[in-house]
């Protein structure tokens, strides 16, 4: 029998854009095994997963609604990761933005929307930024690992929200742990009447566009990419590495904060503990799947929005638990990670 040898052999450049596609195919092959095990038809499942949500206008719009927070957290994570700052804290920064939005929304009672909505947006951005500042300063000033601190702070702010919702903000009406409704003038207008698609969706695309602009057209973007791709070489060339990283971390936190504003002002109109359906963590999947590229990230966010909606359709139509969506999303992340490594190797006969 010939001996097989694994050797380093980087795949040609044109393979790179195919990696997400290959990963999606492999993921669905694996998923079909799960579906088969439930004695259901995998093709039918794929139809409900990927096609049925786009078949009707209302559900297609729902896909866009679901992708809104993912576009924002995906953009946030992309921004930080590109500069070599591993912000796992988009979840917490989103929550900080949500707290700010709920708080501001309450006090903006008699302010016209033209003023109230920009205040909400700026306030949420600032809150996300402020909450991101803690780990970012610890990283750039004291060299404290940002992954652990951002992860821990995600939980800390949940306790803070729980403190608010069980105390001062407890709904006087229902007594449930949810904040009072925000003022009507602070509510994001609907982009399409009688759907849930709201201003946040536009905000998300503006953010993606802004990220693209920073990456492609600004000196900061070039510095960020230089730091992310080669910290010491960038330092050698005179880039102020710590300052660049800090800027990236703060803006990343701000964008994540917008996701919180968008959920409060666009969907719930009040703050609840479960305001984020793991959007911050899913943003990491979006960013990895989109290869930290704004176009890729927006496609990935839309795709994951589709998966979210599709999981509901599959569940309703075929009785397959909705959590199949979670499995597909996370398996997709892992398979993409593996594909990114495996593209550099080939198997050869020795």
């Amino acid at each position, binding site marked *: 029998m010939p001996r097989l040898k694994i050797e380093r052999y980087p795949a040609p450049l044109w393979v790179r854009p195919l990696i997400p596609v290959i990963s999606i195919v492999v993921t669905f092959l694996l998923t079909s095994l799960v579906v088969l095990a439930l004695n259901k038809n995998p093709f039918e499942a794929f139809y409900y997963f990927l096609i049925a949500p786009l078949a009707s206008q209302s559900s297609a719009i729902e896909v866009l609604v679901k992708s809104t927070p993912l576009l924002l957290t995906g953009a946030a994570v992309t921004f930080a990761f590109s500069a070599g700052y591993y912000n796992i804290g988009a979840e917490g920064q989103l929550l900080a933005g949500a707290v700010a939005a709920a708080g501001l929304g309450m006090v903006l009672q008699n302010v016209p929307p033209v003023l109230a909505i920009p205040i909400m947006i700026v306030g949420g951005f600032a809150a996300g930024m402020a909450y991101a500042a803690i780990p970012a300063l610890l990283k750039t000033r004291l060299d404290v690992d940002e992954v652990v601190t951002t992860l821990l702070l995600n939980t800390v702010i949940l306790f803070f929200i729980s403190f608010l919702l069980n105390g001062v903000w407890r709904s006087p009406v229902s007594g449930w742990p949810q904040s009072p409704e925000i003022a009507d003038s602070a509510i994001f207008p609907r982009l399409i009447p009688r759907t849930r698609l709201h201003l946040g969706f536009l905000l998300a695309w503006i953010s993606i566009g802004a990220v693209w602009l920073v990456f492609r057209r600004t000196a900061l973007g070039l510095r960020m990419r230089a730091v992310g*791709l080669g910290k010491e070489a960038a330092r050698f060339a*005179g880039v*102020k590495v710590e300052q660049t990283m800090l800027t990236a971390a703060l803006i990343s936190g701000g964008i994540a904060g917008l996701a919180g504003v968008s959920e409060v002002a666009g969907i719930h109109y009040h703050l609840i503990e479960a305001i984020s359906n793991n959007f911050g963590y899913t943003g990491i999947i979006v960013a990895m799947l989109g290869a930290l590229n704004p176009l890729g990230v927006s496609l990935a966010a839309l795709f994951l929005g589709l998966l979210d909606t599709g999981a509901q359709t599959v569940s309703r139509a075929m009785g397959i638990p909705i959590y199949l969506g979670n499995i597909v999303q996370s398996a997709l992340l892992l398979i993409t990670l593996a594909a990114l490594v495996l593209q550099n190797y080939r198997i050869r006969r020795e």
Partner: protein
Amino acid sequence: MNFIVEMQGITKRFGVVEANQGIDFDLKPGEIHALLGENGAGKTTLMRILYGLYRADEGEIRVAGKPVVIHSPKDAIGLGIGMVTQHFTLVPPLSVVENVALGQEGAVTLDLDQMRQRVVDAAKRFGIEIKPDALVRHLSVGERQRVEILKSLYRNARVLILDEPTAVLVPQEVEALFQTLNKLRESGMALVFISHKLNEVMELCDRITVLRDGKKIGTVLRGETNEAELARMMVGRETFGVVRPAERRGGEVRLKLDKVNALDKKGLPALKNISLEVRAGEILGIAGISGNGQSELAQVLSGMLKPVSGTVWVDGKDMTGASPADFAAANIGRVPEDRHSGVVGDLSVAENLVLEHLEEFSRNGMMDYASVQKFAQKMIEDFQIKARPQDPIRTLSGGNMQKVLLARALAHKPRVLIVAHPTRGLDIGATDYVRSKLLEQREAGTAILMISEDLDEILALSDRIAVMYEGRIVGIVSGRRATPEVLGMMMSGALEVDYAEA
């Protein structure tokens, strides 16, 4: 004579480079055999083959007369061959005993007392002083090296390879090491001592094999040779095909170092009281064998390493401990030692070219990519870089990458230029090109400090030559007076020249 190790016709290729070309080498019990040569002569490669870290493309190895195949260090250890490399393979938070016994524990559960006893016994048997219970992290470099040696002996080595063992030691530790090695020789072990230091080789070794450019030059007995002959064998060049520029006295002092001291990554002194001056329109060559402080000097002069004391002046301005950004702003051109550490591989050629002076290519923070493109095109033409502006720089050959770095350093007509190993790994065409660019800059009045291990290069380009040895400048000689023999002696610590002579 019964040899314990015989290597015959060993050839090893890395790509197109032949690191070893048909080398014969043998070793007797009870001798210390030196492998002498410059960096890149192939000494370490040859011994890594013996220790199973590389596999030879051609040639045969016999141990105690029997042909053997050595695929891994494990095989080598099984044959009684041990190696102490420059990078110790010790686990700092573990104790000396634990480090020595690691992988040879003998049982599932550890009998700490018994393990300790075995290690202490072995140390006593070979006369090696250790602190069995100390954590390796608390030991000095010399003590760590002894632990490393003991590790090999504990695994029943009869042959011990030491790769430049004195490079990391202070003089007193060298003395102690030599005593240990002498004891091991008396006990009948065979030792290989890899070095480029003539005085050490002459003091310690019985036989000396000299390698140069991957070839064996010869094997001599200590009693039948001298330092001058060894230096000639080691660095001797057949021809010097390059024209040395007319020597000249430079203009005003542009770069001045006064008693600069700096530490390396491990916190050991790497630069010791370095004082020198570079004048406008001259090239000061820094010669020396790698690891004698040149890296740290280049780092200090590019802002990547802060000196612990001393002063660096550029154009009369104190730049001690300034950041790389400050150096770039002060128009000091820098070409780094390792070109891959100077470029961001996944950024394009154009982006790498402008990274140092982004402010000139952006307005209000917005990049002016039209002018970036124009600038990159011009640099690519001026410097004959074979690439397009948008190519990721990691796809470039070494020569073209070096040209990009050179272009970046020269584009702004620097006042001072710091270049380290400007032509290392380049083909002849690229080498000539880079050297001619340096001479052009010299004509234009730039003060150039050039670090190189290539003696031909140093001799070809330098107006003055400073030689570094163990972190010090052991002499500055004029380019006219320098010869390879003199420099070779200085580089291996056999000769010091008074500064005043230059």
